[in-house]
């Protein structure tokens, strides 16, 4: 009995060693939850074309991806925001040279429950709602109900982007903050679920998450300009005011496998996948 156990242990051990040694063709990609489906789609197609290579994609948030790139536990970081100065400095201290590649665009959709009569808001109204100045739906033409603000956790690139571009009007160092009573949800899916079941709530997420259970809000830059709904045409043309670039970060100039993968992502085929996963391809 003991011998059998020892033998199987040895077998498992040698097998693990063997598989670890055989993992030279693996690319580790980590980062933004917004991009995890996109990364997965790229990886699947890429592995179809290059069957001897393996691409592993995991989420966790833009910050998680950057931390992993800095500590060397991934080859490519997917991020929905640019790296912060302190992160770049930390990377350089560790001998990592992060290089930014813009690979797609994403519109941030503001969504409410389909039962909510409100279907359009100005950026100024959005700012008021998410900062807690506008507390009741009737102030923006809805029913007499308290607004429940849904935001992402601070490890989300979407959270940071929304704060800097809607709350702070593009001034990254502004003093504005989300209202303290905003609910911080652990994932975009959690926001989608809560909006679907709560008619008082308002939340935001990447356009790719829009489903019939939530109603996207048409947004206007100000009262004079028209209301624009979040769809692919409006993001490409730049009419929709809340859109952002999505990045891949590599350590230094990409080489070998990572270069191949990056070329694939930027190729026509790669950009078609962007469109198929409800993101917006970058202009060529």
């Amino acid at each position, binding site marked *: 009995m003991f011998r059998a156990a020892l033998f199987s242990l040895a077998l498992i051990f040698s097998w693990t060693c063997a598989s670890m040694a055989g993992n030279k063709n693996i690319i580790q990609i980590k980062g933004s939850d917004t991009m995890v489906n996109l990364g997965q789609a790229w990886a699947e197609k890429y592995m179809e074309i290059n069957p001897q290579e393996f691409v592993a994609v995991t989420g966790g*948030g833009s910050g998680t991806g950057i*931390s992993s790139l800095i500590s060397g536990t991934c080859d490519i970081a997917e991020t929905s925001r640019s790296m912060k100065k*302190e*992160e770049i400095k930390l990377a350089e201290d560790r001998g990592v040279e992060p290089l930014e590649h813009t690979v797609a665009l994403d519109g941030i959709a503001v969504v409410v429950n389909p039962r909510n009569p409100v279907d359009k808001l100005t950026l100024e109204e959005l700012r008021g709602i998410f900062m807690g100045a506008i507390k009741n739906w009737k102030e923006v033409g809805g029913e007499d109900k308290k607004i429940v603000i849904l935001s992402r*956790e601070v490890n989300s690139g979407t959270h940071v982007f929304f704060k800097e571009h809607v709350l702070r009007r593009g001034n990254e*160092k502004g003093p504005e903050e989300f209202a303290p009573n905003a*609910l*911080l949800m652990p994932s975009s899916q959690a926001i989608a679920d*809560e909006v679907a079941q709560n008619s*008082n709530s308002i939340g935001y997420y990447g356009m790719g998450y829009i489903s019939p259970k939530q109603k996207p809000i048409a947004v206007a830059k100000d009262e004079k300009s028209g209301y624009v709904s979040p769809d692919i045409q409006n993001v490409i043309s730049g009419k929709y005011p809340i859109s952002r670039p999505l990045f891949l970060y590599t350590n230094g100039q990409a080489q070998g496998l990572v270069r191949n993968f990056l070329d694939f992502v930027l190729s026509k085929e790669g950009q078609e996948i962007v469109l198929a996963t409800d993101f917006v391809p970058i202009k060529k």
Partner: protein
Amino acid sequence: MRKFKEFIIAKLILACGLASILFVLLIFLFLLKEGFAVFKTVSPAKFLFGKSWYPISEPAQLGILPLILGSLMVTLGAAVISIPIGVGCAVYIAEAAPLKIKEILKGGIELLAAIPSVVLGFIGMITLVPLVKNVFHLPTGLTALSGSIMLAFMAMPTIVSIAEDALYSVPKTYKEGALALGATHWQAIYRVMLPAASSGILAAVMLGIGRVIGETMAVMMITGNAAVMPHSLLQPVRTLTATIAAEMGEAVVGSQHYFALFAIGIVLFVISFVINVSADLFLHRKR
């Protein structure tokens, strides 16, 4: 040769024993080292009693009072729900239940302990959260109360099994004496058994609470995580544990935010240490 073998084995076991203590010590030292760095920039009073938590702003506001109160509130709610039910259940199992029911109940409670907290959180999110919202006519059901109810489920197995053990360890003669003096079964339980087992029951409660305050995943999913000063159970709260779990992934290693999260770890460590030590004291008071 045999003596030598004995000697080696004895030393190996000793090393195993020491290793666990060493690990605890190392963890504690690491926590202290990383956590205390935050006090270079924020005073301890401001950290513990500051009312706003905006860790990634510039300048960052690192006040964890809302988080501490959030944790305490959820824990208190869970205690209020789980202690009477848990102790009642233990009394029933130890004193009143027929053998068959006893077996079923014990199995069920062990099963409850085996459910992963993320599953409980998920079930809570789908069933409990809308229920709480509709029953209390709240704008949202992601509240401290939802967290308390779900955590009460998690504390129950600990409370029941330890309290039950405590009741069993009361000498049979106590109960027999009470019955012989003419007490009814309930009088014997209430006047004799419960007081005799009180230290063990208190320990059970403490350990249950210790479990609750350290719980992360379920509370993160159903308490809403808004870092406001909590005024009632019917409002969203953010707990210490959920803060660490949600933000550690983002925190830039070596930044103020990173150190602040470790300092939160110290606060949590101190709280659960106090709870565990007092549980231990209650448990050994009699002996």
